[in-house]
């Protein structure tokens, strides 16, 4: 049995250590999905919230191998819930932390600037790019987590990168 399905099965039996391993494997996935939709200062709580919800709902997961897409669905719903309660009046842009505003002198771009640029894009490209650059997923992994076809993910990556470059160029960002 692949390692991940074994972890999910163990977590379902109450093994908190196994659940912790699942958290470490998928926290960036959840963070990417949440960051595509809510401000950074809300994202941290929501990431933890998603996992707490998932822990309580493991009994409803029918296929242990589908844990990641199932978790991604919970994350999207939770983020949508948050936005609905905030009445969509909270902008995605918000004050950055000192660490996020810090610019790497060798590479000339801070995390906040990169995040702001990606989050200014249409939602379809936003999540795909965040899954690629924050969660470090490959194209096929993004397709599995999002339910998109491989073709759609390729298009989102290609067009999303083109728009991102245009956005950063207009703000004086790094050139390729």
């Amino acid at each position, binding site marked *: 049995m692949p390692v991940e399905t074994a972890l999910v099965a163990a977590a379902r039996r109450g093994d908190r250590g196994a659940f912790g391993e699942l958290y470490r494997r998928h926290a960036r996935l959840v963070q990417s999905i949440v960051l595509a939709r809510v401000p950074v200062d809300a994202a941290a709580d929501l990431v933890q919230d998603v996992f707490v919800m998932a822990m309580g709902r493991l009994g409803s997961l029918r296929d242990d191998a589908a844990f990641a897409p199932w978790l991604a669905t919970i994350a999207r719903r939770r983020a949508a819930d948050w936005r609905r309660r905030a009445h969509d009046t909270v902008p995605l842009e918000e004050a950055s932390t000192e660490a*996020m505003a810090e610019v790497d002198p060798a590479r000339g*771009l801070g995390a906040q600037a990169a995040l702001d640029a990606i989050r200014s894009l249409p939602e379809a490209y936003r999540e795909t790019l965040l899954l690629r650059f*924050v969660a470090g997923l490959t194209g096929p992994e993004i397709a599995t987590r999002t339910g998109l076809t491989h073709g759609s993910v390729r298009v989102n990556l290609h067009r999303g990168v083109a728009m991102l470059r245009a956005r950063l160029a207009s703000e004086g960002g790094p050139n390729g």
Partner: protein
Amino acid sequence: MAEREEDAALWGEGGALPGDLARIEHALARLPLPPEPDWTAVAPRRRGVPVLAYAAAAALLVATLAGLGLARDAWRVDTLAGSPSLGGLAFGGRVALGGTIATDRRSRARLEVRGLGEVELEPGSVLRRVPGRGRERRLALDHGTLHARVFAPPRLFVVETRVGVATDLGCAYTLSVAPDGEGRLAVTSGRVTFTHHGLESFVPAGAWCPLMPDGVGVPRREYAGDAFLAAVAAWDRADREADALERVLATAEASDAITLWHLLPRVSGTERERVAARIDELIDVPADVSRERVLELEPAALDAWWAAIGMGDASEWRAGPGRKVLPW
């Protein structure tokens, strides 16, 4: 870099990302993750009933309630901690009119008051949906603590307690009631009117009033002076000492006029004269309103003094759908 090589790198088929995308990836790698919780200490959110049985029961109840037209107006309940329980006319995580929400000492819940706002229920609380008047949305807090955040026109959201009724005027507040009826209403933003036996207390943001089994105390500022707060607390007691009022008046500052204003209908005779005189000393009361009219509790005179305190037009505190001006 050729487009095909770039696409392959983006796809994860191998090869390095072009420089600009590599810089973006490197920058985003510095995004902090939230600290990992101690999973051994986390209480997972679970449904208290097996899903299939719950779904079957919910389906039957929905069919019934749909015929009664109640399903459309059922309010959603979210679990914030532990396992809140729904009773009465409640189904599928929603409470209809007549339904109840109960939290044990480890549970918290959030109730969406459709179209008006939301209420969070602390552990050890029981909250019921009860009929309101007209467009009013009404709850009854049997005991416990709730935090209300309302973004609706005034007087559409009402919470009953065994002591009295809190009517929202556009705000956020915390209402606590113990099983014996003692409690507290504290307003965080906006304002709330609390009604007890026809006597209204206007509680603005930054003020609170105690609830007692036999009544409700006068509103006082959260950050009033210690001596004044102690004097008011002493006056609140049914077995207050003879000089309790004098100590309230002596320790009051100008910003405490809101408390003194609420004392006017709660005292009579020479005591009322002393309260009115003290208000007159603390703030600039309108010259065209005679002291006699205030002492007679004439509504227009009291409203004028309320405005002079800086609390705005008193009619905004009273007016609302289906509400009459209550006599003092």
